[in-house]
């Protein structure tokens, strides 16, 4: 139970960001009062989901890679560059999320 709560807490910042982005843009769209308000609201929620889920995915992937990379660098500091590359590869997930976010906002 404690572990589940702890695991959920780890993703809290990403989920909060996702919710805030979504609701902020949805409110902005709704405030316009035009006929496409619902569609704009849904697009805003989609944009928030794209960014937020990309960030969660990156976090999930970087956790074990980071732990292993820290272990490798502790033994062989000269491997830092190689490990950094492996560590940054999951960042592509959040970049794809950003792309989705801007496409939906555009």
């Amino acid at each position, binding site marked *: 139970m404690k572990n589940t709560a702890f695991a959920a807490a780890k993703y809290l910042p990403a989920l909060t960001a996702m919710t805030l982005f979504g609701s902020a843009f949805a409110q902005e769209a709704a405030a316009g009062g035009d006929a496409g308000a619902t569609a704009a609201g849904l697009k805003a929620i989609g944009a928030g989901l794209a960014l937020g889920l990309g960030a969660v995915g990156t976090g999930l992937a970087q*956790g*074990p890679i980071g*732990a*292993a*990379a*820290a*272990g*490798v660098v*502790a*033994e062989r500091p000269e491997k830092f560059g190689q490990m950094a590359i492996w560590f940054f590869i999951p960042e592509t997930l959040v970049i794809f999320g950003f792309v989705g976010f801007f496409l939906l906002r555009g």
Partner: protein
Amino acid sequence: MNNPYGYINGRVRMMRTALVESRALDEAASTVNYQEFLRQISETPLREDLGDATAQGAGLGQLDEALSRNYLRSVAHLRSIATGQPAREIEALLLRYDLQNVKTLVRGVLTGRQADDIVAGLIPAGTIPWPVLQGAAQSADVPSLAQTLSVAGGKIGQILRAAVAGGASSLLDLEVALDQGYYRAVLAGVRGTNVRRYFTREIDIRNLLIARQLRGGAPNARYFIPGGRDVTESDFLRIAGGDNSVSAQDLQAVTEAVDLGTAEAIARRLLDEASRNVAMADALGPGVALDYLRRKEQEIARMRLIGRAKYYGLSKDELAKELEGA
């Protein structure tokens, strides 16, 4: 999700890359004399610990000390990087050296060897402090050895004391009692499925070797070690009675080997294979550490053999035969 073995295994994998490569071992085995052998191993990661072994007039004693130092440093390093549950699991893996050391002590005391000779055969690893092992080597008989080890001899020391209190007196009785207690303790201490699978395989192989040892006498179920997967108690009694068939095909070679020495060499090969498999399958568990310890043990054992062969001028064929059995 928050698995501490991600970090630990990253370090252990890097430690594995510092082991002497098989190419370097082959080169050391093909050197022309002892001096050339020393020069060759000075170019491997062992060089940091060689020290006096390469000095003028140094002999096998200094080489053994250097190799032991290297081994102890690796084990101590492995212990230092784990905390919490992984530390307890790694301690459980290190019980193997306690078992080997206590068996060496029992054998030495039973056969009346000198304390110095017994200490020379001990492995400087495990959880029993070195001064305790050195003190235990001075024991006059097995009951006093058990008494000494029961205080600071960890789990294996307590197992020996219980075995002696239970009336075990022959070497086989004591060794099997130690094996039974050791496997019971290890299976209780490790939680990873893959590592458990490795130990059940080890128990099967140990049972087969004991059954082969018992051939020619009256088969007795009290020598059976419980906890295996493929060799049951009835299989054990059948094999001890002279039958060679085993349900697992790959274990057949152990029962069919021409002599006990060949059977032990086959058993070692099977266990090497099993430990490599567990290291690959157990990326986030203690399997990687288990495999590392086994590889390190082999590296040191092979270096000792090659060193002796070069020191005494053994031929290449004789050395190759020795290495095959190691």
